[in-house]
């Protein structure tokens, strides 16, 4: 899957990233660790404030669900005990959704996850592991599993899935499934097949993400 990503384009936040995959374009900013509001503060851990903003219109329950899923993925990635009584603000702004917003949100979700991960790296927040996320669809008639489907392929899909995996050891070993969010009509066999295929594709993506990080970080290091 071909993606484009950029790190550190925004100046007034600690970390930022832009992630483009097909027609989906997300920009993400990370600020932290900063002082939290009293109600956000956690006595032993870093608190996360996650905001997802839609390209068109005001944020609705749809964005709240996206925020919730994003939180579930990011929480285990961050070494939260390093920053007790602190806050990290993660803002994802969807610039182009690349799918029919009234029916789907998987492309936006998986791009938000990848963008937030790159943003956290750029902000220098301590992390336990890496992650990569891909959208998957099973299309009508052929029952073919399509990774990173287009808006057109989504329209003829039977089921849609978002997969996020956690990687350790330089992106070689899959440690955990962070998110498997499925919607639609599918069998157990199909699910196992798509997990198998998804693992390979996530591994490719995580390699690509490592390259992007390396390209962006190495010029900043002083030899």
């Amino acid at each position, binding site marked *: 899957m071909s993606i484009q990503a950029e790190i550190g*384009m925004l100046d007034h*936040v600690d970390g930022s990233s832009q992630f483009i995959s097909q027609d989906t374009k997300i920009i993400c900013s990370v600020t932290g660790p900063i002082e939290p509001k009293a109600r956000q503060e956690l006595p032993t851990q870093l608190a996360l404030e996650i905001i997802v903003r839609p390209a068109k219109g005001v944020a609705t329950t749809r964005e709240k669900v996206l925020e919730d899923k994003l939180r579930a993925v990011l929480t285990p990635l961050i070494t939260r005990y390093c920053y007790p009584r602190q806050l990290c603000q993660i803002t994802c702004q969807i610039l182009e959704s690349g799918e029919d917003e009234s029916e789907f949100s998987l492309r936006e979700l998986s791009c938000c996850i990848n963008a937030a991960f790159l943003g956290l790296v750029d902000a220098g927040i301590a992390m336990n592991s890496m992650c990569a996320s891909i959208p998957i669809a099973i299309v009508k008639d052929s029952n073919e599993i399509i990774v990173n489907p287009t808006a057109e392929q989504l329209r003829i899909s039977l089921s849609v899935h978002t997969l996020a995996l956690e990687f350790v050891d330089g992106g070689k070993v899959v440690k955990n499934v962070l998110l498997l969010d499925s919607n639609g009509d599918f069998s157990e066999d199909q699910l196992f097949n798509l997990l198998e295929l998804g693992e390979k594709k996530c591994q490719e993506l995580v390699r690509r993400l490592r390259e992007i990080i390396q390209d962006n970080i190495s010029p900043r290091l002083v030899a």
Partner: protein
Amino acid sequence: MAKDIEISASESKFILEALRQNYRLDGRSFDQFRDVKITFGKEYGDVSVEMGNTKVHCRISCQIAQPYEDRPFEGLFVISTEISPMAGSQFENGNITGEDEILCSRIIEKSVRRSGALDVEGLCIVAGSKCWAVRADVHFLDCDGGFIDASCIAVMTALMHFKKPDITVHGEQIIVHPVNEREPVPLGILHIPICVTFSFFNPQDTEENIKGETNSEISIIDATLKEELLRDGVLTVTLNKNREVVQVSKAGGLPMDALTLMKCCHEAYAIIEKLTDQILQLLKEDSEKRNKYAAMLTSENARES
């Protein structure tokens, strides 16, 4: 917690002293507007504007809605300017009660919506029951001053770039033609208002802030964030290419006389003239790029002009 940015005493002294000696931190002259970089997205009505480090994105969308009862012949037009913490940690999410946020949204509202830049009567489909509701969502991505100027350019460019789907009306029934079926139609734009913001600094003691007798204030165009934090007064004028003053906003601050205001308007006109030409040129280039074969397929004869 949304904490205001604080600027150190030594830095503020340095910037003010530099201004007194006719220098700005970014090397611009006092009456120089930052270069405006405008880029279009894949879809119609998707525009990003960059002015130095300030980045603003605007997205236009439309849907069919019911018009207001007291205005049956007019469509709806809403501009949403909500600032998220992405622009800087001094902004709070969902908090639109901050002074900057309100001022920004009010001036944009006044300059674009209430000045009648968009022809809302052209959005009417069936009087009293159906009309287009056009929405402009302004996303502030990075804040280095000049939010008002940048978002005004972004909204106007996006409105001119946007095209709504074509429709056919059969009595009460309407058919909306998808974009791939029929060429979408652009919105009716009546004039192009553009904002220019002046910031004023008082080079003397604080007494001058109240009396304002000597008129020796330093006036700079298009302040950056640091200059915005230190300024003593601010003036935003909105003009269009027809030499009409759309609005003038000066909410308190350093007193100034009428002649200075006139001078500012003249300076602003030179800037907006250049910006309008730049926007129109970019829009033309973009439409040519999107419609490569139009010139080849047209049945229009070559005419002598």
